[in-house]
């Protein structure tokens, strides 16, 4: 990526950023989890599809194209003056995977939120991160009224490798969401050490 830092006139250090992706099916609790740990209310940015971007010199061409706008929700955690961590909730459906490619590039890792009422909605996310060797953890969001599964049951249902952490969580609870992020970063650290 760009390494032009345009730095000499800056008086304050410009922090570097890291990102963690939060994946999972709709309603699994992605934005809820982001909101629980973010220092800002989750923001939403719209990305207009690439086809439209390449047509910018020809406005009539833009009009005739089918453009899709994809919303990304994200939050921010300032680690220290030189480091900022962003959490991106990724659009869950397969048709948005062109965005996952860009988003997953350079990501520290990913949290896949599993909703045990509809566990199959996170199969695709697990596949995606496994195939690209992006470190991830599975966070089982414990909804009230849903049957509680043991982490090992979820691990088996998702055919996860033994190294992939499975954490039970309540996405609404900051302490619980922190544990999820810590388990991911610890997992990343293990891989760095290995």
């Amino acid at each position, binding site marked *: 990526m760009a390494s*032009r830092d345009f730095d000499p006139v800056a008086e304050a250090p410009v922090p570097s950023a890291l990102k963690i992706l939060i994946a999972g099916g709709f309603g699994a609790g992605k934005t809820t989890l982001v909101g629980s740990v973010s220092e800002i209310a989750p923001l939403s940015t719209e990305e207009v599809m690439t086809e439209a971007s390449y047509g910018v010199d020809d406005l009539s061409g833009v009009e005739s194209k089918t453009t899709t706008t994809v919303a990304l929700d994200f939050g921010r955690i300032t*680690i220290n003056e030189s480091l900022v961590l962003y959490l991106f909730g990724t659009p869950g459906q397969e048709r948005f995977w062109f965005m996952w490619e860009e988003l997953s590039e350079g990501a520290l890792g990913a949290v896949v939120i599993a909703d045990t009422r509809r566990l199959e909605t996170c199969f695709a996310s697990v596949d995606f991160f496994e195939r690209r060797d992006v470190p991830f953890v599975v966070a089982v969001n414990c909804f009230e009224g849903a049957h509680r599964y043991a982490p090992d049951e979820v691990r088996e249902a998702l055919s996860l490798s033994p190294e992939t952490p499975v954490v039970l969580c309540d996405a609404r609870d900051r302490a619980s969401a922190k544990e999820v992020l810590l388990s991911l970063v610890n997992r*990343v650290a293990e891989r760095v050490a290995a």
Partner: protein
Amino acid sequence: MQEHDEFDPNDPRHGLEHRDPIDGFDDDTGAGEDDRLVRPYVIAQGRDHADSVRLDMISVVIAAKRAEVDELALEPEQLRILELCRRPQSVAEVSAHLDIPVAVVKVLLSDLLNRGLALARAPYTAKSPVSRDVLQAVLDGIQRL
């Protein structure tokens, strides 16, 4: 800015049928579609990624402190970006706060970078693996939340 109603545990309606955001967008963009589609590219004066500095969604940008800004030479949106970036902001944050698509923010920003009016820091990427020190800092930072 979009609604953040992805999951409300107290909302008995939650479930797939009422929360497919694609349907939401279709509804949203119906009448004002032309305006929403065309305007950003007019702002960007027809430029595209080709003459952009490569900016990432999480490149962090800050306005240059001592730069002299010729306001007439800039788009109003660029002035808003400079105002916003008195504190470090990522490209994604600029996009969200100013309600301009990321791709357009990148074009406007790269122009500001080329004029020396703003500074950008490239994010960590897979090509620059994160060191143990950085990971420890991240762990500490999350612990402190």
